[in-house]
């Protein structure tokens, strides 16, 4: 214990990262990040979505290798070439999406990859004993080592993830939004466990969007914005909230949003009443008129994507109604929505939107094939002609529409999806994170396209985690927090810090 206290009081940096750069094709995810973490402290990492937090922790856990910059671990310069290596150095990461095997037991999951065995035979009794010890240490003796992980609650699964990290000899623990799946009681328990760890000299990097949590558990903090460190090593106690929000929002890149044309809006086109999906969101109501862009702001996991997927029929609503141009849609039927003139550009373009190996023009015509068919036979010349026309109109590059959708950049893939619904002449367009993975130049184009669509009479709903995008693009904004609409206002009456307050704390500070 004496040794532990010594660790805790030691102030030298355990981990020092400087000038970390990580580039992905078409996007500079980290443009120079500095971070120093001391033994025995809770170091909070703050930043908006897309600021580079996830990339940074993936560098830290050995998943990504940085293109530039240095990592000094325990006084020595080091490289982290694989997750296994990071783990050997004593760095463990618990991701938001837990990486457990549901078909294995608690004990088996914890010792996965470093099973206790003699001569190839697993030491079941020793494994069980150590697992029980870990669970007691984590304050959850009720999680039995023999339970199947798939049957545990998300919170309990997180405890198992923690236990797995602790089963290694770790000196640094990274927690990525650990409280997202926890209720208040569980969060308190989590904090107790974290304090226990720091008392033993373990450093914790804690990522959360909830300011109140950071205030409670954090010692120091680092703010990231647009892939850069804007402030590092600030003491949590002495930094006011206003200052934090200013650091998170101050911009280095300005996006050009198309001007609102101020045309009179048309008839209510999409009417959502008391829509609810039990356990995800409840009683959401809103109306979007022809020509209007409605923005849904909120954190990832707040229920924004789920709301529009339910409107679209991709998820079956528990209750409530969706009307398009006054006509009520059948619940849980995408086809009904599409036939009524609704289109969705999903969040995951590649896995939910595109046929990556198919030609661009086929991706464009995918939702309107009937238009080019007589008795099921396609008029392929006409199909190509219309798709090419739209590709040109939307400036999809490269222009050759016979090449596979896979070869296009993110921005151009997004344009292909927009073209798909444009071809279908949809009346309501739902856009989930329309500029995710889209580079700066193409963003401007996509914003202009969305505005032009609205001006042509389409009712548009935009979901985005980037507050600035919602405010710049939308006419009216709904703020969603933990499955509830907490605020609704014209975009002009809101500013970024106000929305961030609402998003993070549910009220205006």
């Amino acid at each position, binding site marked *: 214990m004496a040794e532990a206290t010594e660790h805790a009081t030691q102030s030298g940096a355990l981990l020092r990262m400087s000038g970390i750069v990580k580039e992905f094709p078409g996007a500079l995810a980290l443009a120079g990040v500095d971070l120093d973490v001391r033994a025995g402290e809770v170091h909070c990492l703050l930043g908006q979505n897309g600021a580079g937090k996830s990339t940074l922790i993936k560098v830290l856990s050995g998943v990504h290798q940085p293109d530039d910059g240095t990592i000094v671990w325990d006084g020595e310069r080091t490289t982290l070439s694989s997750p296994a290596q990071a783990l050997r150095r004593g760095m463990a990461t618990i991701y938001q999406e837990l990486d457990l095997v549901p078909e294995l037991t608690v004990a088996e999951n914890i010792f996965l990859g470093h099973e206790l065995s003699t001569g190839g035979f697993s030491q079941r009794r020793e494994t069980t004993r150590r697992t029980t010890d870990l669970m007691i240490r984590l304050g959850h003796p009720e999680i039995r080592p023999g339970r199947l992980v798939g049957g545990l609650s998300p919170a309990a699964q997180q405890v198992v993830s923690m236990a797995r990290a602790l089963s290694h000899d770790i000196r640094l623990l990274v927690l990525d939004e650990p409280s997202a799946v926890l209720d208040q009681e569980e969060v308190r328990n989590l904090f107790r466990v974290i304090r226990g760890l720091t008392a033993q000299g373990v450093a914790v990097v804690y990522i959360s969007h909830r300011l109140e949590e950071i205030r409670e558990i954090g010692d120091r903090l680092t703010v990231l914005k647009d892939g850069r460190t804007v402030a590092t090593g600030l003491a949590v106690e002495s930094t006011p909230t206003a200052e934090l929000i200013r650091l998170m929002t101050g911009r280095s890149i300005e996006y050009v949003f198309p001007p609102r044309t101020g045309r009179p809006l048309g008839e209510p086109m999409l009417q959502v009443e008391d829509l609810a999906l039990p356990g995800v969101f409840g009683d959401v109501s809103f109306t979007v008129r*022809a020509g209007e862009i409605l923005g849904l702001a909120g954190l990832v996991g707040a229920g924004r994507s789920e709301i529009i997927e339910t409107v679209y029929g*991709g998820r079956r609503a528990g209750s409530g109604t969706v009307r398009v141009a006054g006509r009520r849609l059948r619940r849980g039927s995408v086809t009904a929505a599409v036939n009524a003139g609704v289109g969705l550009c999903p969040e995951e373009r590649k896995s939910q939107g595109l046929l990556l190996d198919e030609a661009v023009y086929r991706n464009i015509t995918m939702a309107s094939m009937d238009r080019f068919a007589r008795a099921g036979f396609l008029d392929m010349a006409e199909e190509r002609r219309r798709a090419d026309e739209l590709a040109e109109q*939307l400036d999809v*590059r490269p222009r050759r529409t016979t090449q596979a959708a896979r*070869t296009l950049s993110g921005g151009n893939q997004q344009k292909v999806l927009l073209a798909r619904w444009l071809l279908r002449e949809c009346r309501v367009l739902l856009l989930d994170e329309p500029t995710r993975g889209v580079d700066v130049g193409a963003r*401007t*184009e996509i914003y202009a396209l969305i505005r*032009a669509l609205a001006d042509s009479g389409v009712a548009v709903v935009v979901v985005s985690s980037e507050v600035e995008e919602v405010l710049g693009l939308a006419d009216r904004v709904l703020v969603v927090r933990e499955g509830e609409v907490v605020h609704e206002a014209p975009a002009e009456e809101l500013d970024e810090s106000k929305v961030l307050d609402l998003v993070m704390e549910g009220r205006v500070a």
Partner: protein
Amino acid sequence: MTDNPTIGTAPQGNGAGSDTARVEQAALEAGSTRRSGLPGILRSSAGRNLGLVVALVLLCLAGVITAGDRFATVDNMLTILRLASVVGVVSIGMTFVITGGGIDLSVGAILALSSVWCTTLATQRLAEDTHWMVIVTTALLVGAGCGLVNGLLIAYGGVVPFIATLAMLASARGLAEIISNRRTQILTATGLRDFFNDEVVGVPVIVIVFFLVSAAGWVLLNRTTFGRRTIAVGGNPEAARLAGIHVKRHTVLLYVLVGLCCGIAAVMLVARTTTGSSTHGTLLELDAIAAVVIGGTLLTGGRGTVVGSVLGVLIFTTLSNVFTLNNLSISAQSVVKGLIIVVAVLLQQRLASRKNT
């Protein structure tokens, strides 16, 4: 209202946007030149088929060299085609199911059940009283019916295709045994037999049926919304669903289609052998899947080629023929068949992985 909305020309991404686009274009062009050469040719569908044609020609050459006088005769060619016809028709159906992201292990059993059902005393008596088309209709209905059961189980029951069709494999053949009492049923309708064993300008009708089914399959896959939906459902079911395609309904239709093909194949086999039997089509599923896979249809779905499947069937049938003419054992045939499958799949995978990088 939004009739043909005109979208104002998007502002040219001056600076970053257009630059990135240019760089990407350049990279793509560089990529395509780097990938030219033989593997590049093989990657296009026409090129893959060319590869199969080359393989087929080589096999024929081997036949000519080792058994020239017996191999290179019109009669022997027709024998190969006649043998290829039954598996061929089933392979066309299988091409659709696999392209749509599924698999059907029950094709052989469905064929057996159809062949037995359409040659029962009752069916044949009815046919005698009316027309032999009754037999054909029965076979097609039984085949499509089995496919419907498969499809409903898979699409709406959520049973994985492998298991659902494995169950059908067992029960359809069992049912065929029950109906036939494990006895071979003789086809008495001479009309049916004569029709299918007839020749039109020297080509057996059975081969013409195979050709027609293949042509219809090609058109269906490449020129209709049905084919396009099949590719979408197999390539990315979630994207297909979110684009408004009835993924479940389409899946059912795919299994009905392959069932129908089994019915057609059953009629062909009944006519050729003049028997209906619960042992017909044993292990046919393996031959059909093997032909489809070496033809270039992606086993994971999303890409299919009817021409490739036809070539695949012809390659396997010719191989058997050459081996038989040289008095080599069936066992040796099987070994070589296995090797061909492995080589073809390894080749495909290497090409696919290169495409993704």
